[in-house]
């Protein structure tokens, strides 16, 4: 049967204010940013990419004279892909006077940091965090998240899933058992079931799991039309390798609803070909958008590699925060938040904006497909865009996401 022969990999990228005096413990000439990213653990490749982009953006801003007369310095902490460590790090960064904290390549890390920043009255520019909760039930007035979320990913891919697998397709899910995996799995399940699909298996897996073989044997028994792997970072790399080793792609289509270039690059086009995915940003956009070209060129010049979308979110975070400071004319958190809320800007793609009521960044979601080895020009040339979905079309409505952020003053 053809549907099993080609073995599609469908991949969806997504992925009281206790006012703290601005710049406490800092000199009058510098401000401190707290960079809190995973440099070890399952998401370390994404954390490394984020850190590189943070440093690069800060260096560029400093070379241009800094922000409202102050140069930026930073402290770096390793979250170890662990929410408790991320929380402790955020507290330390705030205690040493960080005027802004940014980071988190796992959603539970980001949510933990967001809570600490909210309590301290420090702006948190969330890094790679794709859980619906980050700007949903765990949203905070001091948190801004540019990266898209599970709902956006699922909605953007809904039509593609139905087209590929039919309205009555059977789906099996393996998903990372924490806020991101849970919310993304739920979002994808909702869209496929709404279209008439059926969920035949749903298995949570712990973060950092080494072998998925026993889970994959259950999947084999369930005989789904599509296996949806809601894993990320090194976990996804390991899992898809094991899927490949077991030749499951010949029996069912493979869907990976969140992909980042540093997960695809080690696997190469031979494994990634045909995979359907979606991303909020891809380095190939540099061929179309001047802002992306500037970013990719600067990143490549500094690090001799392509940036992934974890780097893109870091780049946006630094430039958006500092631009807000400039508009506010102050590092005061209240003024900066007001300057960010509802702000429209053009940085990496066309015009995008920060939604004022949940602080979600609204920008397009790109549905993509893995290139074949023959189509791939180099180790980073792995995907092609097959459809573009406007930010407002795929984002949750107020009814779907009834958050109420804390008062500002």
């Amino acid at each position: 049967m053809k549907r099993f022969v080609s073995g599609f990999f469908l991949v969806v990228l997504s992925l009281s204010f206790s006012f703290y005096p601005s710049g406490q413990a800092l000199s009058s000439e510098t401000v401190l940013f707290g960079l809190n990213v995973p440099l070890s653990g399952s998401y370390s490749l994404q954390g490394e990419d984020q850190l590189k982009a943070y440093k690069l953006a800060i260096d560029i801003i400093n070379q241009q004279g800094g922000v409202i007369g102050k140069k930026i310095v930073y402290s770096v902490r390793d979250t170890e892909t662990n929410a408790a460590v991320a929380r402790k790090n955020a507290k330390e960064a705030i205690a040493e006077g960080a005027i802004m904290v940014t980071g988190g390549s796992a959603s539970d890390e980001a949510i933990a940091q967001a809570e600490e920043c909210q309590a301290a009255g420090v702006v948190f520019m969330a890094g790679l965090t794709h859980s619906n909760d980050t700007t949903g039930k765990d949203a905070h007035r001091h948190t801004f998240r540019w990266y898209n979320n599970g709902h956006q990913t699922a909605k953007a891919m809904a039509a593609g899933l139905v087209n590929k697998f039919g309205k009555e397709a059977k789906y099996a899910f393996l998903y990372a058992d924490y806020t991101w995996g849970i919310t993304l799995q739920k979002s994808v399940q909702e869209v496929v079931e709404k279209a008439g699909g059926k969920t035949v298996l749903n298995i949570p897996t712990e973060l950092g799991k080494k072998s998925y073989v026993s889970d994959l044997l259950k999947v084999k028994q369930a005989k789904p039309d599509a296996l949806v792997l809601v894993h990320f970072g090194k976990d996804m790399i390991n899992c898809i390798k094991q899927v490949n080793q077991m030749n499951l792609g010949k029996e069912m289509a493979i869907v990976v609803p969140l992909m980042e270039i540093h997960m695809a690059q080690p696997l190469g086009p031979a494994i990634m070909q045909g995979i359907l995915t979606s991303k909020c940003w891809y380095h190939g956009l540099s061929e179309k958008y001047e802002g992306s070209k500037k970013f990719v060129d600067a990143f490549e010049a500094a690090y001799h590699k392509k940036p992934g979308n974890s780097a893109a979110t870091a780049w946006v975070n630094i430039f958006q925060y500092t631009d807000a400071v400039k508009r506010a004319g102050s590092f005061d958190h209240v003024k900066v938040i007001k300057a960010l809320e509802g702000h429209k800007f053009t940085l990496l793609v066309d015009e995008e904006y920060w939604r004022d009521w949940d602080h979600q960044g609204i920008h397009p979601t790109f549905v993509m497909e893995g290139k074949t080895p023959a189509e791939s020009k180099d180790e980073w040339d792995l995907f092609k865009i097959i459809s573009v979905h406007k930010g407002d079309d795929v984002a949750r409505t107020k009814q779907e996401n009834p958050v109420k952020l804390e008062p500002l003053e």
Partner: protein
Amino acid sequence: MIRIIKQVIFLVFLITQGSLAWPATQGTRPIQEIRIGYVPILSQLPLVVSYEDLGISNRSVKIIMTRFGSFNGLEAAMRVQAIDFASLPVITVLKMKINGIDVKIVGQCSAGGSRLVTRNKGGLKDIRGLLIGVPDLESNENLLLSLVFSPMDMRLGIEYKTIGISLGTVIEDYTGNRIDSMFMPEPFGTIIENRKIGFMAEGQKDVLTGKFLTVLTINSSFLNKNKNIVSACLESIVKACGFIEKDIKDLKAKQVSILQKKYFDYDEDIIASSLENRKGEISFTKFLPEKKEINRFSEEAVKMKILTHSVNLDDLLSLEIMKQAMEKK
């Protein structure tokens, strides 16, 4: 039943294919390891700044950083090959070579950074009669004092005395009056000055300060087997030196002073002040140690009976990789 048998056969197949033992990471390249030792003084900053960079940018190399409380500890670790790479006082390296320890000098990453600080204001001649704390009796600092004071008719052991003190107890030794003065690496001089309990001896600029002190040293067998790792390390160190110099110039060393906290744990303001004011004429711009400078120390060390004889530097220096690293800067 047939289904179970099929699954067992399939599972056995997977095990034999290695699926169950799949590595946790992509792990297609073998992880190589380098053990680097350092002591918490400012002239060693490039090692930790480099580690911050290389530690995340080259995941095929596993770097193990170990902090030592003294150069003696660092030397001992190097001698027994508990570490592969360190920045050591040049005399220590010469002594190791004479003792048959097969090491190579592959470059340098700093110059200067040690200062003579006294309890009372005064010049070099006022050192007469004082007990001076130095990192070790066989340290470059002790040799430098001898080189400078001998022409002034101030003899070691007669007109002045020196004593080796641990980096971990410098401040306590000074405040406890166990030493009268000290010629130690930064940031100890700045810490003393900051507490207003000592002064930089006048007349030492460019005489005692700013001098070549430590060299990047590597175990020869490690170098022979791992040139790619050494190359990556030296490239990163050259880059780190540029980063430190830029930080001193542009940000008054604020970024580096934050970064050192994790490795040295000194007060940020002390470090920023020391670097910004180039205390001890510290610099991070010289990467190739000169033979004449090494020979100067070597000759004095032979005179002081620290070394039994001089060393053939052609057999000790291996600077090609550093030269290549500098070209990639």
